[in-house]
């Protein structure tokens, strides 16, 4: 199990696939750990990519600072990891908390990337997200990691995914509970206390950018992704049908396929963001179709754009 150094701390990472191939770097969400990208690793390697995953500082098998984690630490760690990947094309993707780290990295080190895929992401804390974040932190403090998982699972996954697992949720939660410590998760969450909106800097991201948002994402709804679409010049927003916030867990084959196609399009010079709004197919490999002309993609009912 290889480790990177970040000061006195060690960061566990994994690098798979052929050296010299275009690389995908995948950044975990808050309560995740790198094994959760296993299906992506297999799918992307099969498409000729190299795949880098890691546990964030304070997460999984990486070291856990006792008291403070700064968001700058995550950018520095990511920079070290990307430094391990040589000079070939690098595509960066992250989900939720990890999407935010990916966004910041693209703002600060965009020249090192070939493409960016923020998923279930945000550039600023809306009042709803701020209050939900505070409530989740309180839940962690009062009820521990297990209670935080109890809150996140129904919020972020569909009935279809949950239903067959209802009588074995403890086993679903167990690995996340084992590898993530309360104090370390709390430190990660509290690294948001001085969060500054990224919106004013988004326009500096010149990279091809595919923004992925679940149709039913409750935690980071469409409006938060819309900020990214509007501000990042060469971006397109892709809506994942019937998906919630944690669609990377639930729809791994579909999402991995989208990631591979995006990178292949970029490398072939075919990607055109044009701030489009697209809808992904429900099946991996299906066509992306434009959101119906004239209708407001920020609404949950078919309302024509401009109508009140």
């Amino acid at each position, binding site marked *: *199990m290889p480790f990177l150094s970040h000061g006195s701390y060690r960061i566990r990472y994994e690098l798979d696939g052929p050296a010299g191939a275009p690389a995908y770097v995948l950044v975990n969400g808050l309560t995740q750990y790198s094994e959760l990208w296993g299906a992506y690793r297999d799918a992307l390697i099969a498409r000729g990519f190299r795949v880098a995953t890691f546990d964030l500082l304070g997460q999984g*098998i990486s070291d856990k600072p*006792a*008291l403070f984690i700064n968001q700058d630490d995550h950018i520095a760690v990511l920079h070290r990891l990307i430094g391990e990947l040589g000079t070939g094309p690098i595509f960066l993707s992250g989900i939720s908390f990890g999407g935010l780290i990916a966004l910041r990295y693209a703002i600060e080190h965009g020249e090192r990337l070939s493409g960016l895929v923020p998923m279930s992401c945000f550039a600023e804390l809306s009042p709803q997200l701020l209050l939900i974040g505070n409530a989740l932190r309180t839940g962690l*403090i009062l009820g*521990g990691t297990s209670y935080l998982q109890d809150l996140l699972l129904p919020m972020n996954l569909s009935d279809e995914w949950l239903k067959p697992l209802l009588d074995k949720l403890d086993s679903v939660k167990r690995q996340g509970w084992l590898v993530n*410590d309360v*104090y370390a998760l709390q430190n990660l969450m509290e690294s948001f206390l001085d969060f500054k909106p990224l919106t004013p800097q988004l326009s500096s991201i010149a990279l091809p950018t595919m923004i992925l948002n679940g149709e039913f994402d409750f935690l980071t709804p469409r409006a938060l992704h819309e900020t990214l679409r509007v501000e990042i010049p060469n971006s397109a927003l892709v809506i994942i049908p019937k998906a919630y916030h944690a669609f990377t867990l639930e729809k791994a084959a579909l999402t991995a396929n989208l990631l591979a196609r995006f990178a292949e399009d970029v490398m072939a010079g075919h990607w055109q963001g044009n701030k489009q709004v697209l809808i992904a197919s429900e099946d991996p490999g299906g066509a992306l179709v434009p959101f119906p002309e004239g209708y407001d993609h920020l609404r949950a009912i078919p309302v024509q754009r401009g109508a009140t």
Partner: protein
Amino acid sequence: MSTFFGPLEADGRVPPRQQTRVAAFLVSAHGALARQFGLALPARFEAAWQTELNAQFYRESEIVSLLMRATIWIPDFALGPMAASWEMAWLPTPIDGMTDHAHAQTIHLATLAHAVHAGIRPAALMPTEANANDPFVMALRRIEFESSRLLQAQILYLKGPDLVPFRDAVSTALERRHAEVRRLWTETLESIGISFASDTKP
């Protein structure tokens, strides 16, 4: 070497030798905290935060009481020297740049409590097949849950505005405490055939 207790007994209980060694360590650590919180308690409270000190004192005492009653104790002749090394480790150590004795004492107690409450997760040693109705199993779950609640007082204090001028010294002292407590915990677990998960790093 497993990362969990076991092999379990036929009724799903943790073997008494493992119970004894782990409970002895926890009694030593939480007992030390109970004593130190007890010594820090004034007879009459002058500040609101002292109510939390009172709570910490009684919760630590409760953990010791719980372990005394929930554990299947067996004679363990290796415990003498081990317990002596544990007790020495809980004593205050100097904090760089901190000349105010009272302040240093408070930081010592907070860093020790943080390291014990955050760094020791006894419930995470429990395999899935452990008997959930066994008192020892229940006790360890309760201790881990209660530790994460108790920890909040240490987090508030150590991250609080009073210690901002000493942030580096406090962080260094805390990381040192974590490393020391983790080392002792790891050694204790290894002595009963359990490999501490975080210690699998190269």
